[in-house]
């Protein structure tokens, strides 16, 4: 007994010290860094939140959403309309962008989640592309300004402000995924991922659980999309519905390990920085190199880095129930 207390204590002190140091670093960072670094950090936080919310539906429940960016883009446009047209404050606007995406997620999720695997992926991808065309079209032009794009103005959120909001959303997404992973809901989603029909026959209401997962996933996608719109200042369907956002998030999820808490976070940080580096040095090879990483991940680490390290007993299997 004494030994365990000692052992725990030996972990607790460095963990608290590390957490305090990290908090101080993250709070102080925007005040002494260049705009470029703050903006890069915002991208990292966006991707942490995006990959974590993708994790809920695709990592835990196993429904890989290839149309993920659709919900991000809906969030971006919602914020643009709320700020530009109705002069709503950025905070409720961001919240509402999450809500709008979530409602679309619930409505679309109901029929979409009846199909599985590659069919689900194709249907979700088609949905996102459909929304992109719709938002570029003349019918929606009075609201979306069509393919021309539109600037997102009428808010008082400075770059540092965006940094802290992005940090908050990223931390919130990690917290939500942590709660899911340590609760029965997360286990039910994992059960759905591996054996959906038996799970249903053992009393799990799989439809309800999948829709809740889709709703959580869409809410974060929408809120991040909203903040991204403010951050990048100018949005058009090509940029906020870019399939590259979906692919990056999926790559991060696969690399880090779906259904884990910290795998996707580590992968989001690593890949955002790698991507930035590649983008600035080898602009033409950028997508190709990311593609090669994806192929290697699928071939050699099909479960992702964290589950692989857990299997090798290098990392502990941390889920506790």
């Amino acid at each position: 007994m004494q030994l365990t207390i000692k052992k725990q204590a030996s972990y607790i002190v460095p963990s608290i010290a590390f957490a305090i140091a990290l908090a101080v670093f993250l709070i102080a960072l925007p005040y002494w860094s260049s705009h470029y670094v703050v903006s890069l950090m915002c991208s990292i936080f966006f991707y942490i939140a995006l990959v974590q919310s993708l994790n809920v539906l695709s990592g835990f429940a196993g429904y890989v959403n290839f149309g993920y960016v659709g919900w991000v883009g809906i969030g971006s446009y919602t914020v643009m309309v709320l700020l530009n047209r109705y002069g709503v404050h950025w905070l409720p606007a961001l919240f509402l962008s999450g809500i709008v995406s979530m409602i679309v997620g619930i409505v679309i999720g109901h029929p979409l989640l009846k199909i599985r695997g590659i069919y689900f992926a194709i249907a979700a991808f088609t949905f996102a592309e459909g929304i992109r065309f719709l938002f570029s079209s003349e019918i929606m032009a009075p609201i979306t300004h069509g393919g021309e794009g539109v600037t997102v103005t009428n808010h008082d959120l400075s770059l540092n402000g965006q940094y802290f909001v992005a940090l908050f959303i990223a931390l919130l997404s990690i917290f939500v995924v942590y709660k899911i992973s340590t609760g029965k809901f997360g286990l039910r989603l994992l059960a759905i991922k591996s054996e959906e029909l038996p799970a249903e026959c053992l009393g799990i209401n799989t439809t309800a659980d999948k829709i809740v997962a889709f709703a959580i996933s869409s809410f974060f996608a929408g809120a991040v999309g909203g903040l991204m719109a403010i951050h990048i200042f100018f949005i058009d369907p090509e940029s906020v519905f870019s399939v590259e956002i979906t692919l990056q998030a999926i790559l991060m999820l696969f690399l880090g390990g779906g259904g884990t808490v910290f795998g996707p976070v580590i992968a989001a940080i690593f890949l955002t920085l790698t991507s930035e580096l590649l983008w600035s040095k080898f602009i033409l090879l950028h997508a190709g190199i990311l593609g090669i990483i994806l192929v290697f991940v699928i071939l050699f680490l099909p479960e992702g880095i964290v589950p692989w390290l857990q299997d090798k007993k290098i990392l502990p299997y941390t889920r506790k129930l």
Partner: protein
Amino acid sequence: MPPVPCLEVKNVTISFGGLNALDDFSFVASEGEVKGLIGPNGAGKTTLLNVISGVLKCNKGQVIFKGEDITGLPPHRIARKGIVRTFQIPKLYPRMTLWENLIVTSRVENGPKRAIELLGLAGLFDFKNEFTRVLSYGQQKLFSIIRALLVNPSLLMLDEPAAGLNALEKNKIMDFIHQLNRQLNLTFLIIEHDMGVIETACEGVCVLHYGKNIAEGTFEEIRIEQKVKKAYFGEGASSSE
């Protein structure tokens, strides 16, 4: 006292294209009974389990469980009412520990305590924090029964519980079924090809052939039934004996 019906299947018909997988099929399982369901391959046994558990919807007929019509309910609601099934392949959740496999769908009172008891009873307690892949196939089958038990069934349907097991493992599973049947008065519906298992485990047997209930009775009665012999060995079976 006459036996109380636990499950009544009334005139169930289900067709895939032009084929009637179940054709006006009826049978009753009484409370506390261990009922065997046999028949040649393709007779409709698993289809029947799928209809009872709500995985498939029948075109005609009714499934009555403890006096309540449960026809067409979704599988999770049927499971929550007390009908739980296992599959031919154990279908465990591979990236979850044994403990998590049990807790995720547990609906019994004192779930964790009961889970520990059952794991102990099946000799799997030492593996509780391991992934399911450490279990042998026989252990996986046994474990899938434990997982189903924790959903709190009053009718447990086992789809070929002894298939692919050696003699020792078969005995273990049969002992387990007997024990549960005696202690909890649990009703069982067992699909099995192994006649040894059916003979030792089941009180009543129902024979399916081309989706029809061709014979019902004790194992001894079924064994000498001409229709059953024909179903298994063809037309010449009766004359050759």
